[in-house]
């Protein structure tokens, strides 16, 4: 898929803006704070209906504005669709496909797919397990939209179960036990399905990540990637039953997909604690490249690559290696400095104070 055209109204620091990205590489240059990343964020918003910087919805509206609009013309294998997201300061946001409002905004998911490289990606390796679970789940949703509902179900059941445990206050009455059993059954069902999907995805990501690592790292190394969910051996229903007394006593859900880990290793050692900063950076890039490949395979065509200011964080070797490793397809990169050596954009635009200068 690729983006033919992007229009913004009152989005971040843009009053109005229009961009027709190249089908290959588009470079967006400009000083920091001028609005380069906002363009990528707008495209990312159409993919996930959220900001990849984690910004809340009303932070995306130009200051003082009641409504922001992000609209794009998208080409999916020759089928052109217009997608539009209206963000409101008051009331519900609206999403339109081919000018028809969607009943549920989430139905947009899957129409626009993006892979985002950001300077914060190091957290995928250095950060806590939640970062890696999010990577797995985001990738699952990008591969198949049905996973969005599955993830939401698991989150919701967990919140309900944990709230019930808190209300129980360490004591299990017959009433609470009867409802806890229902939540456990629901969690076992949805959790097993999410665990299976994550495990299958990790198995697919492992060889791609290893290959991508050797492509971007100065020195090749044996890279390992494995989904670790201790409860999967005995099954979540059994694991929850075993953990019940402990869960009730501590008022938390101690077992389940929300406690799992995507274990990463370099040269047989845990990457989070034992890899060098350089190895961690290479591994983060490799993970993004691998998810890009896997999503492309599942969806039938590669997502749009959004490279947000990543080259400033990379040394010359990794910059060049990343550029070489980028698969064919549409890519947009932002940079405050010079273009990385070897980058030959088909289109170069300059951004200044919320205006796109051709």
């Amino acid at each position, binding site marked *: 898929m690729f983006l033919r055209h992007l229009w913004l109204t009152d989005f971040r620091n843009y009053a109005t803006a229009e961009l027709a990205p190249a089908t290959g590489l588009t470079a967006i240059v400009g000083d920091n704070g001028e609005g380069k990343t906002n363009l990528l964020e707008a495209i990312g918003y159409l993919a996930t209906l959220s900001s990849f910087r984690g910004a809340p919805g009303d932070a995306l509206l130009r200051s003082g504005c009641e409504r922001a609009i992000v609209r794009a013309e998208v080409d999916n294998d020759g089928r052109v669709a217009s997608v539009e997201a209206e963000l409101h300061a008051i009331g519900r946001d609206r999403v339109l496909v081919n000018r028809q409002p969607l009943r549920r905004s989430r139905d947009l998911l899957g129409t626009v797919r993006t892979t985002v490289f950001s300077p914060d990606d190091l957290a995928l390796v250095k950060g806590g397990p939640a970062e890696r679970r999010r990577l797995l789940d985001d990738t699952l949703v990008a591969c198949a939209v049905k996973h969005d509902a599955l993830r939401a179900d698991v989150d919701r059941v967990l919140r309900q179960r944990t709230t019930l445990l808190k209300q129980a206050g360490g004591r299990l009455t017959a009433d609470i036990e009867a409802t806890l059993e*229902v939540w456990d059954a629901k969690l076992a069902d949805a959790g097993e399905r999410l665990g299976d999907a994550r495990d299958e995805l990790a198995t697919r990501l492992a060889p791609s990540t290893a290959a991508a690592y050797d492509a971007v790292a100065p020195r090749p190394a044996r890279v390992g990637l494995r989904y670790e969910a201790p409860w999967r051996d005995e099954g979540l229903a059994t694991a929850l039953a075993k953990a019940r007394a402990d869960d009730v006593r501590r008022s938390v859900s101690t077992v389940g997909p929300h406690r799992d880990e995507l274990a990463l290793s370099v040269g047989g050692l845990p990457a989070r604690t034992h890899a060098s900063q350089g190895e961690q950076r290479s591994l983060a890039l490799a993970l993004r490249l691998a998810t890009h490949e896997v999503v492309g395979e599942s969806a039938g065509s590669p997502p749009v690559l959004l490279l947000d200011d990543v080259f400033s964080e990379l040394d010359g070797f990794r910059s060049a290696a990343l550029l070489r490793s980028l698969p064919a397809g549409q890519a947009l990169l932002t940079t405050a400095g010079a273009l990385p050596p070897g980058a030959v954009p088909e289109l170069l635009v300059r951004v200044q104070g919320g205006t796109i200068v051709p």
Partner: protein
Amino acid sequence: MQDLIDELGRMPGVGPKSAQRITFHLLKLPREDALKLATAIIEVKDKVTFCERCFNVSEGPLCGICTDERRDTHVVCVVEEPRDIVAVEKTHEYRGSYHVLQGAISPIEGIGPEQLKVKELLGRLDPEGVTEVILCTNPNIEGEATAMYLARLLKPLGIKITRIASGLPVGGDLEYADELTLGRALEGRREVE
């Protein structure tokens, strides 16, 4: 003003941020529009009550469905809210009676079985000679959990327990399902194991 924000924040689906927005919106309203809203709230509180038997909305002790002698009282369709009765009635597929739980199990909202009209449902089974209970709660997490809870509670009593068939938009509410889909889901209901 904080009182109003707090009160609005207690409404279902209204978070603190929305409560604040609604309050500011109300501040901008002309006085007569604000009065209209206030009067409408009081009027509905005074005139409309809940049916003593099924907890549907009613302007008398019993609702229109409970007083209709042509309805089959051996089958009870259990729904979360009175508006779900409207949705099921629109299908023209159902001639039994109803029972409104007035919510679904949701610890987050402080709702457990004891906050719902569950005891009242149990109390209807024998006197009304109920042979089948259709669990017609919403096809979302809380609705499914409530259906499972009721099925486990009622199954040992030897009553036929059925659940509306899947095919409804998952994660949605009954009120959003079109008549045809809901009608089919009702017709294709399956006995709960």
